[in-house]
Structures are given as C-alpha cells and as structure tokens.
C-alpha cells in the first residue's frame, strides 16, 4: 500500500525521516516533484488567460467547470514548495538563517509587485489622457486617484492600494512573511499547526476578520482565510501527504470526490447556460450563493481538495509523460513561478491594451492568448538556461547550491 505515499512524497520519505527532526518528514533532496512544477505552470497559464478578456481559451480554464480556480492551485503549491525548500533550510541551518532567507524572498516578491504597479500607472495614465468617451464618463471616475498621486503611491507601497488583477502577489507576500512561524510550529507539531490554521480560518468567517484596503473595502484575497490553503500545502509537504495516503487511496474518497466535482460542474453549468437555471432549487441557491472568493469559501476549498485528490491518484509521480517535451514548457514555467507570474500579469495588461487599440475580434483575441503563453514559455526557458549555466560556474568555484534556485516559494 505504499504506492500512493510514494507518489506524493517521493520514494525516500523514510530515509529522510531518519535524518530529520522527529515531527516532520522531508522527501529526499535533489529529486524534483515534476507534478508540482507541472501544475504550478498550468496555474500560471490559466491565471494569465483568466486575466485577459474572455475568449475561446477562457473556456479551457478550470473555473468554468467548478468552484475553485487557478489561484487555489497556485497558493497550495506555493505553500508546498516553500515549506519543502525553507523547511529543509530550517532543519539544516536553524530558524534564524531560514527566516533570513525567507525574508529575502519576500523582498523579491515585493519588488516584483512594485514593478508591476509602475506599469499599471503608466497604462492608466495613458488611458486617462487619451480616452474620453461620453458613454463612459462615469467609469472615468477611476482616474480620480491620479489627482492624488502621493497618497496613491504610498498606499500602493503599503500594499493597501491594489489595481485589478494585482491581488495575488500581496497575498503571497503576507503568507511568506508568516512562513517562518508556520514552519516553526510545523516542526513542533504539524497536526496542531494545521489545526490552528483551520481555527484561524473559522475565526475569520465567524468574526469577519479582514485587512483593509485603500481607498475602501478589503483585500480581495483575505490572507486570514487563504492561509489555510498555504498552510495545508506546507503540511502536505512536511509529511502530511504521506500520513493521508490511506485516505487518498481509498475508493470511497475517490467516489466522493467525483460526485462533488460532478455536482460542482452542474452548478457552474447553470451560470453559463442561464436557460438551465430552473433546474436549481431556490433553497440550494440561497444557501450556496454567493461563493466567496475573498474568504476562500468552503465550497471552493473542498473543490480544490477533490481535484487534488483525484489528480494525485491518477497522475503518478513516475508517469513518463512528465519527461515528455510537450509538457516541458509548462514545467519550466512552474519552476520559475515568480518571474513567470509577473510576466503573465504584464502580458495580460499588454493584451488588454492591444485589444482596445486594435479591434480585431475573436481571432486576434486567440492570437494574443497564444502569443502570451509562448512568451511565458520562452522566458521560462531562458531563465532556466541561464540558471543552469550559472549553477555550473558556481559549482566550479565550489559555491554552495542555492535552495531558491530550486524554485523555492
């Protein structure tokens, strides 16, 4: 019955346990979990497509077939890989060193976010000066914040002012800031830590915890709720997945997951085909809606769990396809997630801009999506090539390998 456990945590989980702290287990170093890279790459592509205006490719993104979407995959895998990389650092070099390295990573993400914000400012300023259609005189009110650039920029630096589609990185920054605490707790008692995380999630719903935003409202992704997915990812990476293997390999789990995914699919079908709406019981609608993305609705979380359970069951770690050149672009993108994520946000901005400037219809739309994905893959390939050759040079000089290079966080 060890096959599922092997798939999840790598064949040498037991060897690693011998050398690490008693509470958590880490898979062997060196062996990359290509499935994680694959699905993070997929999440990055889907996030890019979802950020573009709807087009044919949008129909291939998972949010059309169920409650959860690419964000869940991205945050979960980020929690998983971050715990994997920095958890090892914490075991090997101690809390302080690991924390310092995590903070360095946080700084990188922060700088990336500020860079994207600058591009956004350029775009919005362009629209403000060139676009003045009476049909949209009200919508142009969004430009009012340009009248107070000092306040806006400072609020953006404080992560309180965030343009549309720029909500994921601030969430990621906050989650990474708390990663040292999460890892430290996990080292002590992984299950208790996960329990605390669930308790915080429950408290968020019960007491309506949130982070306020500027000029109004709250963070689009509430970190108090979304930490559950991140912590759950960390917990799985640090041995939780192995301990869950009995549950994951049970056929009952599989059928429950299939049933839930199917039910979610039918519900989402009624969103796209309003003609089917009469099939939905009013009671169910009133109980279910709205399905909060901000607070990571339980329905979304459960949908992600079902998808993940089915995926680890049917897509084995040793599936030869993972090494095929066709999946290589996805895996490369997943391995350089921060760079590719930022590039994706930028390309989505650029795509919107091109679509607004040239009204080319569905064909152009499709072309932009495909070109964007090609650029993302090409960039991932270049980064990977550069890092490989830099690593080789570093090895010649006898430098120590860098865990960040292994795609940490």
């Amino acid at each position, binding site marked *: 019955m060890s096959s599922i456990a092997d798939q999840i945590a790598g064949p040498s989980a037991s060897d690693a346990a011998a050398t690490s702290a008693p509470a958590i287990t880490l898979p062997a170093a060196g062996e990359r979990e290509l499935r994680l890279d694959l699905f993070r790459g997929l999440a990055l592509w889907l996030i890019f497509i979802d950020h573009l*205006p709807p087009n*044919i490719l949008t*129909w*291939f993104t998972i949010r*059309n*077939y169920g409650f959860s979407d690419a964000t869940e995959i991205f945050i979960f895998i980020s929690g998983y890989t971050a715990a994997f990389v920095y958890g090892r650092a914490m075991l090997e070099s101690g809390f302080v060193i690991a924390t310092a390295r995590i903070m360095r990573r946080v700084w990188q993400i922060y700088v990336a976010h500020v860079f994207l914000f600058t591009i*956004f400012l350029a*775009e*919005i300023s362009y*629209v403000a000066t*060139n*676009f*003045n*259609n*009476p*049909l*949209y*005189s*009200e*919508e*142009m*009110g*969004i430009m009012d914040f340009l009248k107070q650039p000092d306040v806006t920029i400072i609020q953006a630096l404080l992560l309180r002012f965030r*343009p*549309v*589609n720029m909500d994921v990185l601030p969430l990621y920054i906050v989650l990474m800031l708390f990663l040292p605490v999460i890892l430290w707790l996990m080292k002590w008692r992984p299950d208790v830590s996960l329990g605390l995380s669930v308790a915080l999630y429950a408290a968020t719903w019960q007491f309506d915890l949130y982070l306020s*935003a500027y*000029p*109004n*409202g*709250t963070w*689009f992704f509430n970190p108090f709720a979304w930490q559950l997915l991140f912590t759950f990812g960390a917990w799985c990476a640090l041995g939780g997945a192995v301990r869950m293997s009995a549950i994951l390999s049970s056929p009952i789990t599989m059928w429950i997951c299939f049933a839930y995914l199917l039910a979610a699919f039918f519900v989402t079908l009624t969103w*796209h*085909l*309003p*003609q089917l*709406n*009469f099939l939905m019981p*009013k009671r169910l*609608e*009133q109980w279910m*809606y*709205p399905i909060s993305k*901000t607070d990571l609705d339980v329905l979304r979380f459960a949908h992600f769990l079902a998808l993940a359970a089915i995926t680890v*069951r*049917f*897509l*084995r770690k040793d*599936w030869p*396809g993972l090494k095929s050149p066709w999946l290589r672009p996805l895996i490369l993108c997943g391995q350089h997630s921060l760079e590719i994520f930022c590039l994706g946000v930028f390309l*989505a*901005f650029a795509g*919107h801009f091109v*679509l*607004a*400037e040239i*009204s080319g*219809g*569905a064909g152009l739309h499709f072309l932009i999506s495909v070109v964007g994905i090609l650029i993302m893959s090409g960039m991932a390939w270049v980064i990977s090539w550069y890092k490989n050759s830099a690593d080789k040079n570093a090895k010649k000089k006898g430098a120590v390998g860098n865990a960040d290079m292994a795609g940490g966080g």
Partner: protein
Amino acid sequence: MKSNPVMILGLTLIAGLLAVAPVRAEEAPANCEVPAYLLTSESKLPKVETAIAGDRRLEILVVGSRSSSIPSSEASAYPGRLQAMLKEALPKVAVNVSVELQVKKTAEEVAGGLVKLVELKKPTLVIWQTGTYDAIRSIDPDDFRAGVEDGVAALQKAGVDVILMNLQYSPRTETMISAPPYLDNMRVVAQQHDIPLFDRFAMMRHWSDAGDFDLSSTSHGPDLAKRVHDCLGRALSKFVIDAAHVNPAQQN
C-alpha cells in the same frame, strides 16, 4: 483504474468545445440584437401588469448614476428611449419615465433615499441602476450587497415593482475597475428578492463581441453613446413588457 491522463485531457477538450458551441451560435450580425435569455426573467412585475391592463397608466422611475445619462443630450439616454419605445409598443397606455440621477453615491447611500423618491414620484416601477460607483471606489462587496438589499427591500415594502440594472461593460477600464464581484452580488440580490435583473453588462459585452459597437473607441463625440443607449432602451422596453406578461398586440 489505471491512470489515463490522455483520456481525461480528451474529455476536457470535448467538454470545452461543447461549452463553446452554444455561445458561438448566439452571435448575430444584426446591429444590436440581444440573446433571448437576456430579455426574459423568471421574476414578474405584477404591479406593472395591472397598471398597464387596468389603469392604462405606467409611471416608471429610473434611479441611476451618471451612466444612466449622456452628458448634454439627456433625451437620447436610455430612460428617454425607454419611454419612446414603450409608448410605441403600448399606444393606449400613458407611459411616463422620469430619472433621478444619484451621482457619486454608493448603493448604500442611494438606498437610504429611495423611499422618499417613491413617495414623491409615486411610480409603479423603479428601475435601479447601480454598482458602478461602488466598483470604482472598490466598496466591500458585502457592504454593497447589503446596500442593494436594503434598497430593494425598502422599495418592495413601499409597494412598487423593482428592476435592478447592473454595470456597463467597459473594455478600456477592465484592468482598472473590477466589475465581477458587483455583478455577482446584484444577481444574488435579484434572486433572493425575486425581482428581474436587467443584465446591461452582458448585453453590452455581447454587442462588443459581435462587432456591433467598438466600445474601446477613443472618439470624443456623443454618437456612440447615443447608439448604445438607444439599443439599451429598446432592450429594456422588451424586458419590461416580457416581465409584466403583457402582450402588446392585445393592448392595441
């Protein structure tokens, strides 16, 4: 069950293609046709029905923000067009559409004053267009929903029929204004209170996708606005007549 990712992928692709098919079929080349499902609602307008069939008087009040008007050509905005189209469709009914613009106010702020407006104008039907200003100010979607709910409940208590109208589709500001949470919440309130929702956003997006209008145009003139509002007024008149269960032929 051995793993079979290829089959799963294939099924996903087929599902995707199936999902695309009905959407493509809807695309009509005509200048501003609206898919039928956007013009009907499960929810009814019983008071409008009796007003048309019995009293032969229909007083409609549009409460909206700046996107319910066209600067310096008010008569061409959709409320004016709605009045013209309803009069045309229901020649024996005295139709009057008045507009109350609540500029730069959130749904919550507008909701508080709705009952007073109803007492003043005594309409049969209130068309409440909202959401844009809340989206611009990124008001907490929960607060927005509470505001819309309060307003709708107050209107229903005051004994008028209500139609909610959502945001405009605005491709130029899509990366700056996040419409989806506000669209979703208006849909929820409409469902919960069993009132029709006029999906302006979906219609305008449909026209944009079908190539009827270039909504990204940088033109500064009022021409585009006038044509879009004319189409909105036309669609809205059909929507009202449909939800009121009135057969225009019988009224003539």
